[in-house]
């Protein structure tokens, strides 16, 4: 038992975080927004050059062969930066689906993206800039070229969420898999949404802390007032107790408990992001309610991701299914198989 990140994992998180701190500043976000382009080509090229789309792809297919923990760390960094490009859904959900279906990954690892239409989400994100779409039709998954579907934009309050309804006709030739792919996609979608929420929550607190040191009222920085401190401390507590749930959910092999924990992670990270973004708006005062300060990018992403890949009601129902039927207790933090035969016999 050792619940620590490995050194290489810490280094990966640091490297991706640094790249995004350099390329995805508030000014970069605003420039992209004004351009009307779906993505920043220079930044996306850098993301591809770092091999990030292939994070979870098998090494034999040209990927890095890394696991959910590494992908979660990347997603935390993407959330922190409010990254507009669909790295998390592409690398964390689409690529593993394609790999599991035995599809060719060449294009998906070299800059092309694949968008995902899953029944848990009403719309498909980033479909217009994708080369292809993974679309659910009942229990079946189809891989459909972008030019074979009709897209209708559904504007989101998050200026960087490009949502579309998709009109398409399933054909047997495009079917690549069944509901196992969809189940896995839902779990990864929820897990990596949780990781992004965790990252953006921390960014919101960090922005508010910086502002509170700078902004003076009554002759002192507002961050010296306890009422302001307590808003941010309360949000930080929520972040601290969402993080180990997200990491444990990412590290556990698939099991009913792991699935419950993914739902728990999504709920905890959503609550942390809500608390942190709302506290950040409040601490910024009227500036926090303006377009000029970056906080609203985080607030809007939090609104969107909190409901994507399973609403809180959906995930609460999954947690309820577990706790109302499974045995519970202090020896059940990790999967019961790992508690050991010896302990069960002793009981």
């Amino acid at each position, binding site marked *: *038992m*050792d*619940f*620590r*990140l490995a050194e290489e*994992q810490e280094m990966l998180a640091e490297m991706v975080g640094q790249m995004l701190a350099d390329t995805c500043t508030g000014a970069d976000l605003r420039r992209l927004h004004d351009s009307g382009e779906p993505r920043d080509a220079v930044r996306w090229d850098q993301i591809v050059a770092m091999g990030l789309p292939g994070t979870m792809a098998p090494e034999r297919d040209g990927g890095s062969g890394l696991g959910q*923990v590494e992908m979660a760390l990347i997603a935390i960094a993407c959330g922190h930066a409010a990254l507009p490009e669909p790295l998390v859904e592409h690398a964390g959900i689409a690529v593993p689906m394609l790999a599991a279906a035995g599809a060719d990954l060449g294009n998906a690892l070299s800059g092309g993206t694949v968008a995902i239409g899953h029944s848990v989400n009403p719309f498909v994100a980033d479909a217009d800039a994708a080369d292809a779409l993974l679309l659910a039709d009942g229990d079946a998954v189809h891989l459909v070229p972008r030019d074979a579907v009709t897209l209708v934009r559904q504007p989101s309050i998050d200026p960087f969420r490009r949502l579309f309804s998709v009109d398409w006709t399933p054909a047997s030739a495009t079917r690549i898999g069944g509901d196992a792919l969809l189940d896995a996609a839902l779990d990864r979608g929820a897990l990596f949404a949780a990781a992004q929420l965790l990252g953006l929550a921390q960014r919101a*607190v960090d922005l508010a*802390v910086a502002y*509170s*040191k700078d902004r003076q009222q009554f002759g*002192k*920085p507002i*961050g*010296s007032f*306890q009422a*302001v*401190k*307590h808003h*941010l*401390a*309360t949000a*930080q*507590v929520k972040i*601290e*107790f*969402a*993080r*180990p*749930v997200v*990491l*444990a959910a990412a*590290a*556990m092999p698939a099991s009913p408990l792991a699935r419950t*924990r993914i739902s*728990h992670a999504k*709920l*905890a990270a959503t609550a942390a992001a809500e608390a942190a973004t709302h506290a950040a708006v409040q601490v910024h005062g009227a500036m926090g309610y303006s377009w000029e300060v970056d906080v609203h990018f985080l607030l809007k992403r939090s609104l969107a991701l909190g409901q994507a890949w399973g609403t809180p009601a959906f995930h*609460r129902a999954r*947690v*309820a299914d577990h*706790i*109302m039927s499974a045995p*519970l*207790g*202090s*020896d*059940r*933090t*990790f*999967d019961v198989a*790992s*508690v*050991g*035969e*010896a*302990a069960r*016999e*002793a*009981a």
Partner: protein
Amino acid sequence: MDLNYSPAEQAFRAEVRQWLAAHVPAQPLPDFDSSREGFEAHRAWERTLNAGGWGMVTWPVDYGGRGLDLIRWLIFEEEYYRAGAPLRVNQNGIFLLGPTLIEYGTPEQKAHFLPAMAAGDEIWAQAWSEPGAGSDLAGVRATAVRDGDDYILSGHKIWSSRAVHADWAFGLFREPGSERHKGLSLILFPLDAAGVTVQPIKRLDGKPVFAELFLDDVRVPAANRLGEEGQGWAVCMSTAGFERGLMLRSPARFQVAAAKLVDLYRRRQGSVDPLAQAAVMQAWMDADAYALSIYATASRLMAGGAIGPETSTNKIFWSELDLDLHRTALSILGAEAELTGAAPDASADIQDWLDGYVFSLAGPIYAGANEIQRNIIAERMLGMPR
């Protein structure tokens, strides 16, 4: 990262489980606050635990422990609460003073105090707060005047849990004329020493769970000082770090309480407030999150890390989760919740929920009020200005 128990850890769990199954009293002990009888029953249990080698598993073998790591401590605690074993009457000693003694004690102090503590022969109370020094602990006024090889202690301490029946106390005293964080020393004194008057204080439910201590020229050997003279603040903060951070409230306590809450909800769900289901799930998730967080902290400390401001985030989280959990239980019990266990028509578990609720009310106050913890998080973790 490896979230599986090793075979050795699994074997350890099995050993703990087996021992507890054979030794935990079949009937719950009378509580340790209401009567001397209950207190002594818990002391006897501490002796039984210690005789089995389970008094304090993380301590060095030389001082009555097993020298085990923090993951094994967590496993021990998980099994301990799972077995419904008695609350630790000596928790001030074993969880708070013990680790501080191990860090700061002289070899003689360790050899004298730790085995007696592990065995339950000496049960400890804490003598920190004063009527004028609660959240502002650096405002303590009680004094220690050096007189040759002795100190003469004088002052008024308050809110000392279990001091009504305990044997010893550890307290914060200042050199006369010193101010704030300077000139403080941590000094150990017997509660039956000449000049000590112990005055019980009733908790809001009427139980004498804590006491005021009046010290009137109490003479103790200078060898009872823990750490350097005048360094008491730093020594106490190490105690406070352990208290808030890790040992005082092990996650298993809340996981077992959350499992009981789920069970209560399952039995009564037809008739409860629809909001209760969400609250029950939140309690279970929070207990789970707290456990995961402590596993992460334990792993980090085992790899050589030091405990930091997470002591404050932990304290806020467990105290608020405990309060929410018990408020939810009372809401599920509905109109029955106001009954005490003495009511002929009360269900069997009602007194436990009521006691748990009353206890949880204190959580956000003791071990550093949550407002102070939020200040610490803001200033030391987030770097906000003082």
